[in-house]
């Protein structure tokens, strides 16, 4: 293991590769994401020892082992909870949470939504492949209805989650989406996510070439279906554009139609961001990518630290002897 450099010498992607052999299936979308993250890390200009990757269980959750930073591969679903404690106790760290759709939206759904509403200073990457990979191919909470898998031979009957709709509904302050193989856009999104104070939530469409190959081909391969969201610019893609219908939902129309939405991720009200999150393969065939929502709200860890500071200012630093002698005391001689 190489020694840390305290941030003095510029780091490269290589500095973030651990000595562990990467063991995802050949062709897995996770490789591309790992490369993008390792390639982006030096840009943070944060020394490696100040970076922590926390994961739960699943294919995506192996991620920390491959990063030459501090890391914890924890329990299925619990990474947001563990990272919350770490990031609250250690505000000097850059804490990243990585997991899959089963990890974060099924067994860990509760932790995810509460982490988002609290706005702890974390960056959460949800690698969504719409299937359980590590347990070998059962349907997941993001699998489309009717999905035939080993556990659903007649097709799944439950409605899937839309991860971005969940995040926006859970009061997330930063919500974005990218595609595993779209390195440029993924790096852009990572950059913005890392810069955001509070919880950043990034969904990455990740191809599982073994159990759910081609799930995102409609936007991964058919690039005309990519709706790149750019702050301050009209939401158009090719000759089509997005406008808000009378009922508040977003609809795809001819780009020349009046009233095309101008993207504003900083809008305090999440309604439009939510409407955009409803544009999916199922609804319009095309899918928005980029930053849906990025608003400022005090981060949880900051507020916690403020209260500790305030309490200390008001009452002075706690004195153990005074604490033990609080209330009525009496002397026995």
């Amino acid at each position, binding site marked *: 293991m190489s020694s840390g450099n305290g941030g003095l010498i510029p780091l490269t992607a290589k500095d973030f590769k651990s000595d562990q052999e990467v063991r995802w299936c050949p062709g897995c979308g996770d490789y591309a994401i790992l490369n993008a993250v390792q390639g982006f890390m030096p840009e943070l200009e944060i020394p490696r020892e100040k970076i922590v990757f926390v994961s739960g269980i699943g294919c995506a959750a192996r991620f920390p082992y491959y990063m030459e930073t501090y890391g914890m591969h924890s329990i299925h679903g619990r990474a947001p909870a563990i990272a*919350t404690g770490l990031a609250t*106790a250690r505000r000097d760290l850059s804490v990243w949470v990585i997991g899959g759709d089963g990890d974060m939206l099924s067994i860990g759904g509760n932790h995810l939504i509460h982490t988002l509403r609290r706005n702890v200073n974390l960056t959460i990457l949800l690698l969504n492949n719409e299937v359980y990979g590590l347990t070998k191919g059962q349907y997941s909470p993001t699998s489309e209805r009717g999905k035939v898998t080993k556990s659903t031979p007649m097709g799944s009957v439950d409605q899937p989650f839309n991860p971005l709709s969940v995040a926006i509904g859970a009061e997330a302050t930063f919500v974005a989406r990218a595609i595993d193989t779209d390195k440029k856009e993924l790096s852009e999104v990572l950059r913005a996510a890392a810069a955001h104070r509070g919880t950043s939530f990034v969904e990455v469409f990740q191809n599982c070439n073994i159990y759910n190959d081609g799930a995102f081909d409609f936007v991964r391969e058919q690039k005309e279906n990519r709706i790149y969201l750019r702050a301050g610019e009209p939401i158009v893609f090719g000759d089509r554009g997005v406008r808000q219908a009378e009922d508040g939902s977003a609809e795809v129309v001819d780009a020349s139609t009046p009233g095309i939405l101008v993207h504003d991720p900083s809008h305090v009200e999440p309604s439009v961001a939510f409407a955009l999150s409803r544009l999916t393969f199922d609804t319009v065939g095309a899918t928005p990518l980029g930053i849906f929502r990025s608003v400022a709200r005090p981060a949880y860890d900051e507020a916690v630290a403020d209260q500790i500071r305030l309490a200390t200012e008001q009452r002075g630093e706690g004195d153990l002897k005074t604490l033990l002698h609080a209330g009525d005391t*009496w002397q026995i001689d």
Partner: protein
Amino acid sequence: MSSKPVEHLDRVIIRFAGDSGDGIQLTGDRFTSETALLGNDLATLPDFPAEIRAPAGSLPGVSGFQVHFADHDIFTSGDQPNVLVAMNPAALKTNLADVPKGGMVIVNTDAFNERNLQKAGYEASPLSDGSLAGLHVHEVALTSMTVTALKGIEGITSREAERSKNFFALGLMLWLYHRKTEGTLAFIEQKFGNTPSIAEANTRAFKAGYNYGETSEDFAVSYEIAPAHLAPGRYRQITGNGAITCGLIAASRLSGLPLFLGAYPITPASSILEELARHKNFGVTTFQAEDEIAACGAALGASFGGSLGVTTSAGPGVVLKSEMVGLAVMLELPLVILDIQRAGPSTGMPTKPEQADLLLVLFGRNGESPVPVVAASSPSQCFHAAIEAARIAIKYRTPVYLLSDASLANGSEPWLIPDVDALPSIASPFATGPNDGDLFHPYKRDPDTLARPWAVPGTPGLEHRIGGLEKEDVTGGISYDPDNHDAMVRLRARKVANIAADIPDLEVDDPDGGARILVLGWGSTYGPIGAAVRRVRKAGHEVASAHLHYLNPFPRNTGDVLRRYDRVLVPEMNTGQLLKLIRAEFLVDAVGYNRVRGLPFRSSELAETITALVER
């Protein structure tokens, strides 16, 4: 003071009982505070329903508070009250059976109307049908005298006036037992000062109650209980949960680690979260999580970052934390998990004590995952138990369970406040550099403690990954090697077993050294066992006792101690959990005394059981 005759008593047990909205707990607390200030030894036991406001006047809605005080050192809150203060028929009905013949019963006659009698299931008034024969009954019109005393106070509704009756009762009881009143008057001012009319009402009701005792012919004598001869020093009254709070803050100071509490509200542990949240100026972070799992997870995450991670709960929450405790076993990071036990299974009886989580915390995890277990034995002992749990967790990089229960949590006793400067350091340094040439191996152990290095994020050069997958010995890399797994399972077990060399021996109380019977306890049975043993000895028998504060590992001399006696009796508020362990571990043919009534043992029942064994 009083012009009436005074009788001297060596000890008294009073039980206040009334509707859960009657302010019984507050009345009991105040009486206890005045008693503590007089230098009596004391022990209290609040007993209240889980419902915040059960239907008024109903049997399930009765709230009780028992205080035992004496001119000598005592062990428990007492078996049977000498005095019962019953604020309504339901309170009388649920508590009367506990009052021995010749005991005193003070009833609020105003509450004995037809409706309340009916709610309590009385067909005729027990005040007139002879059912209180053999008792010294004082019929006091508490409510109406309170209302009369409060006449003329502006801004007080008649309902509010009636509500002050608990202060009338308190005043009367303080007179009856020669307690002082200044502390309570100051308390009223401090607590109700923001609403002057209420403060005035409570003050008047309190004084009226005190004066009623002085002037009423119904109370012919008053009682005095001399101060107890306790060890010299400064004392305060403390509950178990209060002592745990102080202990955790002390552990933070003694270790130099910031305290991070992850918790989810649950009876009877919540007051630790609430109390710690008031002490942020000690650098304490309290995190009220979305669930028990996250509470434990956040604490473990904070530990990874170099905090003293603590999570508090009771049985129904502890079961949810199991997977995270298992991860902490694998990660070998410090974590303190408090289980303030209550009667189970499932939701059980949330406010009632039980000791039935012992096997859960020892074995309730998947795989071979040994966890040290410390158990507190009295409200004030919770302070040292908390420090001890933290010490072991930090030194050995391991999760540690601390067991308390509902009776310790809410019960109180005088506490000889320890000298802060005399408390030993429990600090254990973080790793600061490589431990094998240029390399850092996160699972290279200290040869003495077998603890692994604690390298916290932010330390340059020690970047490493840990997780729930089996580790290769030394390097901590992922390993599926069969022999490595076998070795690691044994290493983790040995690390915990070796803690036995770092804890005190089991102390035996066997004054004459001739006892053939040993009573072995753990947890909150300490008080009842101590009192029972004293009784048996007073009756001329020899009996030894020992109390375990460490349930894993056991003190090194445990087997020797147990084998020294013909018979070992293990009283537990479960169906025989420690009993099972010591029979399995030491092949000792011990016998149990087991009751799961959601109440502490009575020392009398234990004394009878011990006597029967001794005389056999």
